[in-house]
Each structure stands twice: as C-alpha cells, then as structure tokens.
C-alpha cells in the first residue's frame, strides 16, 4: 500500500479516510467542536451560580423555553451540568484526546505504515461522530436532555416522572453512549493490536516512547472497563423501556406505587464506577504520556526514570480497576468494602507521586525550551499535583463522609483530570500541530493562551475547595435558600469571573489553530529537535508514512544531551548535537541507557 498511491477522491481522502493521520485530525476537530459546546454550557451555569436572581439575555438566546425571563429553570440547570460532564469526560477527553493522539502517534512513533486495521479505525471515528450527533440531538428534545448528572444514577435517570430529562433525552443519552462505547472499543482494540504487532525492527517494548506506553495501557483499561458500562446502560434501557427491575425497587412516585421489585440502584453504582473510575485514567494517562514526551524533548534531557514511569503507568492501570468503590463510601454498601477501597485508593497515590517527582527531576538542570507545548506540560504537572493531593482527603473514607458530593470534590476532579487532561491535550496539539498540518502554530498566541488559562483554572478551582469545605453540595441550582451559605456568594462571583475570562481566552487557541492551519509558518521536518520516529517522516503526508523503507530503531527515545563521556558533563555531545534520533545506531561501547 505504501509503494503506490491509491487514487483518492475528496470523499476517500477527507471523509471516509482510512489513513490514521486524517482520522486523527477528524477526532481532533470533532472533539474541539464538542468541547466548545461543553465550555459554553459551563459558562451558562456559572452565570446562574454567581447571579441567581439576575436576568441574562444570553440565557434567553440559548435556552429558549427552558428559561423564564432570562433566568434558567432548575431542570435545565441540571441538564447543563449533566451534558457538560458527559461531553467533557467522554467526547472531549476520551475520544478527542485519546482518539486524536493514539491515532496520530501510534503508527508514527512505532514505525508502522498505518493502524493494524484502517477500516476499523475509520468505523471507530464514524461511530464516534454518530454518537456525537445523537448526543447533540438530545439537546433539542422538548422535555430537555438527560439531567440526572453525568453519573445517571437510577431511579432518577430511569423515571420520567422524577425529572423531565429522564424521558426521550435520557433515551438518546443511552443510545449515544452505547454507540460511543462501541467506537471506543474498536479504537482501543486497534491500538493494542498495532502496538503489539506492528513495531518496526528494533523497536522493543522497552524502547517505546512513553506516549505509546500510555496509549497502549489506556487502550487496555478501556477494553477492560468500557464493556461494563455498556452492560450497565443496556440494563438501564431494559428497566426504562421494558419494565425490568435491575436497578429499581419499592418506588412510590406521582401518587402511585410502581411495579418494580427487587432491583438495587447500588448495583448500577458499582457497574457505573467500574468504568467510571478507570475512565479517569483513560482520560489522564494519555495526557501524562504526552507530557512525558514533551517535557523530555523541551528540557533537552532524558525523561527521568523511564522504567519507573512505565512501572507506575502499569501500577496505576492495575489499581484503577480495583478502586471504584471510593465513589460509593456512603452509598449504603457494606462498610468493610469501604475499608478495602480506602486502602487500594490511597495505594494509587504512590505511583502518582513517583510520576510527579520524576517530572520535576526531569526539569532539574535542564535546558528548558519554553515553547507553548512545554508550558502546558509544566502546567499539567502543577494541576496534577494540586488536584492529586486533595485525593488523599477524598480517598480516605472517614473524611469522605463529610465532603462527599460537595464542591470540594468538584474542585478536586476538575484539577486532577479535567484541567490536567485538557492541558495535556493542548500541549499535544501545540507540539504535534506541525506533524498534523505541516505548519507551525503561533507562539505568541500560545503564550497568551497558556498564562490566561492557567491563571483562570486556578482562579476557578482553588477557591472552590473552600466552598466545599463550607459544606455546599454540588448540583445545587442556587444556594440562596440556605442562609448558612450566604457568605459564599462573593466567592461564587469571583469563580464565575475567572471561568468566563478563561472560557473566552480559548478564542486565542481556536483562532491560532484555524489560522495556523492555512497561514502558519511552514514546518521543518523536525522543528523541536526530537528523537522519535514521527520526525523522520516527510512534512507532507504520504500514505504509509515513510516513502521508502521503514526506519530501523537502535536506541530508546530519550538520548537528549548525551555526552561522549557519560561521566563528564563538560564533554561534547554525542554526534555533535543535543539529540540523537532513535534511528541512529549505537556507537561501539556506548551505554544504551
């Protein structure tokens, strides 16, 4: 397939493309579009939280019949937070992040011509596209979209009597998620097979860049956990539409006793979080992989503790499947289970701490090239630490009792997986944009984008911890009915201002992205002086990635600033420059690291 070009039409090149690079761009642009919608939603509900009694014409414009005189209705508030969470977690940070970079980088960095199955890869994207469309359609259902929270706990999500969003809106939500899961599984299987089978000559598993390790392990977690969510959704569809009682029992609502007997909502919580917790790592690990690569390249230093990094990825992946119960300490499950989950949850702090320390050590004595991608990676380490540390509070069942479902939790998970993963995604886009589009993104706009975004991210989420510690529950439409929370009003205003500015600042990125696509500086073959294989391909995309033979790999990906004499920092660089491509053969007697 590489030696001769297929005749391409517009449709096979840009729409039903089977080329991993094009599919990657399709994932990215779809993910960005969904991201814009989810961010706009968050700005709407932040307006409501800051000024619950003020009428906004912008609310009228967006919400139509779901508002009264410019003030949103409680139902649509819940719908907004639900869809914001769903879109962000699944459509942006799973498909948009993993889909984009796994597709782009797996073949390019392991030296493969394409994914193991280009056709399945195309199917994966189009299922994702279809699920996005279904999710968007659900926004226009008369009774409103799903509004039971992104965790869609039944019975609230099962009974239209309980909340209007649990009617057609919820049905569409479930259909969309089922399609999404199919897309995600097909993609993940493809990634796993590709990494295992299509590595080029010399690319041992222990020579893989950490990006590939992260994508590979992420795909495995996805294959293990996503099917469980599919089952959970199917059972919920049965309960909703066919009268089964998997999750429902003993319900009296709207003046009548329903027929459901013997089910338990706690079962749904177990099934949901069996995916839901690994999902956090499905979102985060690719971002950490991207960061490892970018920090190392831009520090002009090898990533510190390569093997420890792989070990911690594997440890996190394993532990992530046995910690789900920490979302359920107060669900009514046996307290002994709570003890077990506290133990496993706090264990996960160890590999996470190892990763954070290793990033900081990689910075130490580096020659930091502070490109926008590098800044976003450094920002990721910062938010990952801030958000990760509060995990020690929430993971401890005894402390969780009192802060469960408060804004403390909202602050925690937004920092540790939301902001961190988004930063990872931005870092990846700035870094690999030249690989995607053959042009460079503008650095000045990148700098503006980064500093405003990180200031606003902390401005939003740092104070939020404290309103959580004041006892304010999340998903409250307004807290004006509780005089004890009146002193939180000003903080809510500050948070909203930061959120609005941070949201608007993303214009820097979007403009930079689309303008650079057509008018950006032309990229050189290896703009960041990086070691990995993707920078040995020509700037112009070709089918099969490398025009001639596939490259052969002789060393790991992190020989930055390697010296002739390993013990003497003042000696000359090996090969006379501060990076050594993976395709460069080892010299006689060279320590392979």
């Amino acid at each position, binding site marked *: 397939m590489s030696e001769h070009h297929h005749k391409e039409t517009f449709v096979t090149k840009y729409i039903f493309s089977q080329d991993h690079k094009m599919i990657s761009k399709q994932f990215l642009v779809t993910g960005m579009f969904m991201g814009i919608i989810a961010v706009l939603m968050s700005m709407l509900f932040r307006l409501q939280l800051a000024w619950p009694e003020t009428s906004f014409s912008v609310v009228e414009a967006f919400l139509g019949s779901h508002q009264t005189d410019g003030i949103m209705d409680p139902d649509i508030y819940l719908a907004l937070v639900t869809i914001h969470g769903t879109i962000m977690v699944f459509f942006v940070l799973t498909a948009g992040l993993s889909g984009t970079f796994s597709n782009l980088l797996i073949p390019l960095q392991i030296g493969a011509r394409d994914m193991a199955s280009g056709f399945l890869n195309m199917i994966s994207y189009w299922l994702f596209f279809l699920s996005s469309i279904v999710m968007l359609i659900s926004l226009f259902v008369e009774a409103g979209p799903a509004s039971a929270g992104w965790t869609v706990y039944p019975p*609230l999500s099962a009974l239209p009597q309980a909340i209007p969003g649990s009617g057609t809106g919820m049905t569409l939500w479930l259909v969309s998620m089922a399609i999404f899961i199919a897309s995600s599984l097909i993609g993940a299987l493809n990634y796993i097979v590709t990494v295992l089978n299509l590595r080029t000559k010399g690319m041992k598993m222990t020579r893989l860049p950490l990006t590939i390790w992260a994508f590979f392990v992420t795909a495995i977690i996805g294959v293990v956990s996503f099917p469980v969510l599919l089952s959970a959704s199917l059972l919920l569809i049965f309960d909703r539409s066919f009268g089964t009682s998997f999750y429902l029992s003993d319900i009296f*609502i709207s003046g009548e006793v329903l027929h459901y007997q013997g089910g338990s909502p706690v079962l749904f919580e177990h099934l949901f979080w069996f995916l839901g917790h690994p999902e956090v790592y499905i979102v985060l690990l690719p971002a950490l992989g991207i960061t490892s690569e970018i920090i190392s390249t831009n520090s002009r230093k090898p990533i510190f503790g390569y093997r420890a990094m792989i070990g911690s990825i594997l440890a996190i992946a394993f532990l992530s499947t046995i910690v789900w119960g920490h979302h359920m300490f107060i669900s009514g499950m046996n307290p002994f289970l709570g003890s077990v989950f506290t133990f496993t949850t706090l264990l996960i702090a160890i590999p996470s701490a190892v990763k954070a320390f290793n990033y900081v050590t990689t910075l130490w004595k580096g020659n930091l090239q*502070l490109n926008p991608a590098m800044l976003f990676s450094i920002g990721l380490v910062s938010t990952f630490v801030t958000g990760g540390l509060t995990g*020690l509070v929430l993971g401890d069942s005894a402390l969780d009792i009192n802060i469960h*479902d408060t804004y403390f939790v909202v602050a925690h998970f937004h920092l540790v997986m939301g902001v961190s993963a988004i930063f990872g995604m931005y870092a990846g886009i700035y870094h690999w944009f030249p690989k995607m589009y053959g042009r460079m993104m503008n650095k000045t706009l990148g700098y503006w984008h980064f500093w405003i975004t990180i200031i606003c991210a902390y401005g939003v989420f740092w104070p939020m911890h404290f309103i959580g510690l004041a006892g304010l529950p999340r998903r409250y439409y307004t807290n004006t009915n*509780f005089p004890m929370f009146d*002193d939180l009003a000003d903080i809510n205003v500050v948070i909203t201002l930061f959120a609005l500015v941070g949201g608007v*600042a993303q214009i820097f990125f979007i403009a930079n992205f689309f303008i650079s696509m057509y008018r950006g500086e032309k990229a050189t073959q290896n703009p960041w002086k990086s070691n990995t294989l993707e920078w040995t391909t020509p700037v112009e995309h070709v089918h099969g990635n490398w025009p001639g033979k596939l490259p052969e790999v002789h060393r790991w990906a992190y020989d930055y600033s390697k010296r002739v004499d390993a013990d003497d920092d003042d000696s000359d660089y090996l090969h006379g420059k501060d990076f050594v491509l993976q395709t460069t053969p080892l010299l006689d007697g060279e320590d392979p690291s």
Partner: protein
Amino acid sequence: MLALFYIFIGVAIGVSVWQITRIMDFRGSIANDSDNDAQGKYAMGFLAFMYAMMIYCLIFMNVIMLPESASIEGEHDDTLFDITFWLIGVVQFIMQFLIFYFTFKYRGNKDKKAKFYADSHKLEFIWTVTPAIVLVGLVGYGLWQWNNVMDLSEADNPVVIEVYSQQFNWKARYAGADNTLGTGNVNFIKGMNTMGVDMSDPNSVDDKQVTELYLPKGRKVHFRFRSQDVLHSAYMPHFRAQMNCVPGMVTQFGFTPKYTTQEMRDLPEVIEKSIGINKIRRAKGEEPYIFNYLLLCNKICGASHYNMQMKITVVEEDEFDEWLSEQPTLSEVIK
C-alpha cells in the same frame, strides 16, 4: 457587579481580537532565548500569584468553613482532616515551588547544556517509600476512624430514628416507647400514612412521625434511612455525617450530638460566621441569620434538589424527652 462583569467580558473579547489581528506580525513559532527568558520569569510571577492566592484562601476563608464537629464521633474526623490538610498543604507548597522555580532557573539558552541524568535508583526508592510510609499512617488512622463511625453495634440504648426522603422533603419517625421501629414499605402509603409504615406490625403503633428532627445531647442517635422514589443523601455537615437514602433498602448511620443548638450558637467561630452572613443579609434587607443545624439533600434528586432541607434541633436530654412525649403516636394519627 453586573457592570463589572460586562466590562470584564468586553475587555477580554477586545484583547482577544487585538491579539489575533497581530498574528500577522508575529510569525514566530519556536521559542528562542528571549522567549525562554521571558517565560521563565513569568513562571516566577505565576508562582507568586499562586502562593498569594493559596495563602489568602487559607487565611481569609477560614471564617466561612464549617465550625468544629458537633458530634463526638466527628472529632476524629476533624483531627484526621487537619493532619491530612497540613501534610498535603506542605507538599503542595514545596512541589509548586520546585515546578515553577525550576522552570525559571533552568530556562534554556544557546550556551547552556542540559545534564544527562536518566536514572537514580536511590532517588526513586526514596520517593516510592516515603509516600508509602506516610500513607500507611493516614490509612491506618482513617480506617480506625471509619470503623469507629460506621460501627453501630455497641451503642447502648440509642435513640432510633428513621429518616425518610422523597421528592422534595424529609420526614422522620421516632421508634417510640419500645425503641423499635415498625417495618415500612411503599405499598402501605395511603392517606395519612405518608411514610408507608406497616400498621399491622406491633412495633409501629407507638412510632412517632415528625417533620423536624430533635436530638438529645450526649446520647447516641441511630439513624435508619429510607427513600420512596429516587436516591437522596442525608447530609448533616455539622455532625460530619452523611448517608445515601436508597429506594428498596435501609441504610444506617449514627453519631452522638455534642453541643445543643444553643451551645453551638455561642461558639466563637459560629458567632463570627454569623456576623459575616448577617452583614450580607442586612445589605440585601433580609432577616438576620441564626444558626441552626440542617439536614440537606446531597444527591441529585430532581428539580428542587437545591431546596430539600430539614431543621435539626439538639437539646438537653430532659427537654428532648419532654418534646417527644408531646408528639402523637402513629396509631393516634393513622386511624
């Protein structure tokens, strides 16, 4: 405030447009030495911003926090929280310093050479083992406290109360003279029997249904939670207590109130918080706030989730007995 907001948005959009038009002038895409220098310094500026914000919040937001635990069991929660929070606070300050200081200190230039430093088993050993040891301590204390809170078996003569949730209100049922609750099921809901109590169960006869909780100070309260429609969560933040109410099953929690409502109102931190709240309420022309314990719904349950609350009053034991004796029994209410 609103004017400020529109100004903010206006400025933000203005700056964006201005910057974007300047994209034509700045064609640069790879950081050069002067970029590295400037961005490294900005990193220190950001570190200063972050420290200022962290310290400001830690000091000035103390007043909005929940006051000390009003239950005896919650005391250890507060201690454990303080230990954990100090610990992560110190780590946070150090780690953020290292991240942004290194960004500044090692900002690159053409003459610099990075150190080739790929591995150190000693360092990695240290930062695997240190968190592990610290975590053993935290987990140990946490698990001890968790068992302490969740174990309801040894309480001697507890007050048994059923907390009952539905969209969108709370009710409660006291076990009455026999201190045993009668069984309940949604099938029994009819007329005045709004909690679905099985009146054929002899234990139900002396149960008492109320819409406001009274608790005796110094006696263990054993809560049993039920829900008739969707998930709710009974959140009593002042007592460090929370448990979900799950349709189809009974969940439990227990604590011993430590301060009466009046004693709580007299705590200095509650007085200080109330003053702050009342300053805001006076400005808006609203009634002054007086501290009360509350039970809030903390699991998304529908449109009025944000307004699902029940007042809790803690009184001395004799006052509690007197109050309870005044409440009618279910057999008197449900004819």
